[in-house]
């Protein structure tokens, strides 16, 4: 920098720009190299993580197909609260439809949307529900997450397991406060109400579209 006074104004501008350019090239190259080098490992763990989440809603021993490859691209589906395209996974046992695994969104959480993943069996039963993302109040409404639920033996979200539209009526598929049969913790009703409603809607949607969802071509081209 002590040598800078030897340059004219234009010369200095060019020199500074050149140095900045070299820095940009170098660090962009570094980033690209790191990205390319880590890509396979990151993708592998992303797949493993996806499977881990799916395993929570649908036991792996129940189906025998390669679930992650038997997918259907869902367009934005207002019935499920999905404003963007998402992927639906299809589990089969010996070629027969077994369950659908897909995402749904409860739009009316206490503070914004609650993203859920759930599996609905071909007979209409809910196999399991998990929360993927939410902004509910910490320590109050966040018991919808298994990790945050103080009841470790029977976390709140597991009560949807085995519920089906055939057995639970529209009226019962609500939190107890609204006259239904779903438990909730006092102090936070809005959150469980939103989740229950979303699961109900998802079960209805799956029932109405089951045949089409299982039979339509891969990746719905």
């Amino acid at each position: 920098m002590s040598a800078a006074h030897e340059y004219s104004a234009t010369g200095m501008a060019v020199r500074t720009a050149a140095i900045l350019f070299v820095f940009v090239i170098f660090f962009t190259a570094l980033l690209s190299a790191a990205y390319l080098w880590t890509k396979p490992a990151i993708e592998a763990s992303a797949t493993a993580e996806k499977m881990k989440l799916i395993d929570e809603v649908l036991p792996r021993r129940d189906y025998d197909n390669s679930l992650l490859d038997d997918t259907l691209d869902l367009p934005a589906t207002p019935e499920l609260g999905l404003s963007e395209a998402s992927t639906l996974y299809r589990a089969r046992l010996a070629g027969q439809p077994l369950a659908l695994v897909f995402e749904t969104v409860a739009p009316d959480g206490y503070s914004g949307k609650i993203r859920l993943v759930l599996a609905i069996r071909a007979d209409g039963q809910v196999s399991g529900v998990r929360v993927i993302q939410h902004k509910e109040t910490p320590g109050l409404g966040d018991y919808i997450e298994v990790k945050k639920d103080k009841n470790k033996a029977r976390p709140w979200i597991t009560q949807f397991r085995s519920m089906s539209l055939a057995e639970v009526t529209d009226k019962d598929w609500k939190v107890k406060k609204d006259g239904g049969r779903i438990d909730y913790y006092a102090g936070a009703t809005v959150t469980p109400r939103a989740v229950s409603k979303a699961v109900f809607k998802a079960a209805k949607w799956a029932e109405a579209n089951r045949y089409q969802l299982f039979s339509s071509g891969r990746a719905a081209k």
Partner: protein
Amino acid sequence: MISRDEFKSIAGKGIWTQNSSVVQILGLCPLLAVTTNAVNGVMLSLATILVMAISNLAVSALRNFIPHEIRIPVFILIVAALVTVVDLLFNANLHELYLVLGIFIPLIVTNCIVLARVEAFAAKNPPLQSTFDGIFMGLGMLWTLALLGAMRELIGAGTIFGGIDMVFPNLHPIQLLPESYPNFLLAMLPPGAFILLGCMIAWKNWMDARAAERSRLKPPAPVAMAGTH
């Protein structure tokens, strides 16, 4: 390379006299959002220590090649690129740790404490000193955030070490106040963080003022006592 006194001075500044959270009051955005419990505060700080040590080291090593006029864009470039590389490497090779620490790394890329230390220290000092500065600034953040998180969690929910099971799956949070404690939501929300941080700053200033008072009184000059209050 580095003298004992220099090391002590860097450590003292980072941990106490120039503490990033209660003296420089920098990097509050992730600080207030994340410290709803002590575990989160500690995790965020660990990620910050890593990021600050690396970015200080890199900037310090390159400091003689960076023209003064464009130092800020270059600093940002270096910090952002290195943090992203660290993030990718973590994700690929230390996935378990990444799941715990990884969510905090993106919060730090834009944290002004990183840029502040790069600009104020690493750009003017040799690599070893700069790395230590990054580490100790992070350690200063670590105890403040752990304390802030612990207070928020205790007042807000009556527990301590909430979220520890995310880091060590077989440990559980400890319920300090009775189960019937009505959660105090304010402490869990950002305004509560501001209020408690304010209390911590006041406490730190009070400690310093008391220490200054003592050191002024200690010399054997009892006559001077009349003039102080």
